[in-house]
């Protein structure tokens, strides 16, 4: 160009614009995008609330299940600690044999305690239960065998308990083993299924939240196609055009994440009273937990990332179509 330099200050001022100043103006545009996108959301409070509410509910649901599952798990653990195995000996076994077996079993590493219940004790227990005393009077001999009440070690898992019961069943002197192991195994399996359900649910609902943000941002972009075409015509880069919409996605995500956490906390709060009662019934042995603090922070942050991602995918697709 044969143009004197002072008549093209654009070129000149671009050369004069130091990297720090360009960074400053880049940062300024980020600030402007964050602020103006927030303002636009505020200008359509109804639509914004609707999007945030739908997204927030979608994210709160897995949190609620997580909360529920965590408590069921704790409950199961607490109940599991109370579980004992009742070993009914053959009717021909006498006191001495029962004591001998009890001593043997106390030597096992997976056994915590063994109590021997005599037929008389069994009968006394039954007699205490209403309605039985009359029936018992009709018996001329005590039909009850010796019973060993075994408490497995508290940290023994379901397969461990099952193994122990199997060992006990194999003993010749044993008539019947009534064990809670099956119950524990079932519960562990159920919790495993529950955990998986929470994960799948969380993934599905996160996808739903992504779609909700994506669709909202898509409509945002569609309603501003004129502005976008002007920006593109005066030389805006894709990143520049996208920036406000990405911030909108981040805001939607952040707000709905906060909403989800608040909903989850409300559920936790509403469960607090019944759980306290339950805990009292278990003499304070239950340790029912709420949502861990890290989750309360992580959910809004993850939701913000989700919102950004939804906006990014949609804006890339839509702006490419507009170009």
């Amino acid at each position, binding site marked *: 160009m044969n143009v004197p330099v002072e*008549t*093209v200050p*654009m070129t000149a*001022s671009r050369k004069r*614009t130091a990297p720090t100043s360009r960074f400053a*103006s880049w940062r300024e*545009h980020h600030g402007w995008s964050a602020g103006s996108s927030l303002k636009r959301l505020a200008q359509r409070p109804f639509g914004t609330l609707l999007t945030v509410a739908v997204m927030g509910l979608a994210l709160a649901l897995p949190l609620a299940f997580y909360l529920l599952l965590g408590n069921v798990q704790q409950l199961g653990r607490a109940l599991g600690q109370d579980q004992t195995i009742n070993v009914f000996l053959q009717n021909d076994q006498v006191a001495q044999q029962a004591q001998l077996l009890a001593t043997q079993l106390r030597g096992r590493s997976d056994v915590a305690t063994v109590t021997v219940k005599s037929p008389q004790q069994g009968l006394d227990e039954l007699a205490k239960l209403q309605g039985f005393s009359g029936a018992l009077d009709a018996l001329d001999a005590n039909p009850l065998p010796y019973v060993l009440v075994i408490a497995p070690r508290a940290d023994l898992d379901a397969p461990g308990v099952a193994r122990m019961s199997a060992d006990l069943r194999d003993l010749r002197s044993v008539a019947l083993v009534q064990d809670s192991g099956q119950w524990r195994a079932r519960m562990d399996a159920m919790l495993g299924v529950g955990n998986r359900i929470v994960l799948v649910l969380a993934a599905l609902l996160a996808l739903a939240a992504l779609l909700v943000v994506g669709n909202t941002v898509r409509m945002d972009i569609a309603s501003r196609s004129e502005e976008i*075409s002007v920006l*593109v015509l005066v030389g805006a880069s894709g990143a520049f055009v996208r920036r406000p919409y990405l911030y909108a996605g981040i805001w939607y995500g952040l707000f709905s994440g906060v909403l989800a956490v608040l909903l989850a906390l409300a559920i936790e709060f509403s469960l607090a009273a019944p759980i306290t009662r339950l805990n009292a019934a278990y003499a304070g042995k239950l340790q029912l937990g709420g949502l861990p603090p890290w989750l309360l922070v992580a959910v809004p942050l993850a939701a913000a990332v989700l919102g950004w991602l939804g906006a990014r995918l949609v804006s890339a697709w839509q702006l490419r179509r507009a170009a």
Partner: protein
Amino acid sequence: MIQFDAVSKRYEGGHDALLQLSFDVPDGEMAFVTGHSGAGKSTLLKLLAVIERPSHGTITVDGQNLAKVRGRGIAKLRRRIGMVFQDHRLLMDRSVFANVELPLTIVGIGRADRARLVRAALDRVGLLHYERQLPATLSTGEQQRVGIARAIVGHPPLLIADEPTGNLDPQLALEIMGLFAEFQTTGTTVLVASHDLRLIKQMKKRVVVLHQGRLVADLAAEEVL
């Protein structure tokens, strides 16, 4: 500044909007492109800004072969071309100042420099005291001048305008054309498409005449009567 070499443009499913068009516009010149509606004036300007691509031929702008300009290069090219539209294309929800500032923000010029350049541009189109207003509160002629301020704020080496006076009365139209002539005197290459022959004749600049996509006359400024 601009070279068209045997350029043809056929829109999808349409006929030829431009046919074997060849002409140059040297640096710092001002030229009009005229012709009836449908002659291909807008198409010609769109090719310059890479809004459309030619079907055949080569277009060079400021030494750059436009066929090789893609992706980010298109945005960078447009930053060096000031564009004025018949319908001014202002962002109606932003102030006059913000509208004119836009090309500078895109380039990443600092706040203080932006304010200085925006005020200088508004001053040149005589709208300095309107900077805080929204475009909707301005008259059509004033809106068009804001559009022009936005096009020249970054002092682009090339200014193109498509029917910039289409919506204006003759007096205002003449004022606007006067503005373009003024930018030319400061070294900017100016290309204006207009079907208003009477107005063009008053300006005494080079005139390129299109008819059905062909160049039918290329009159130097002295030849315009």
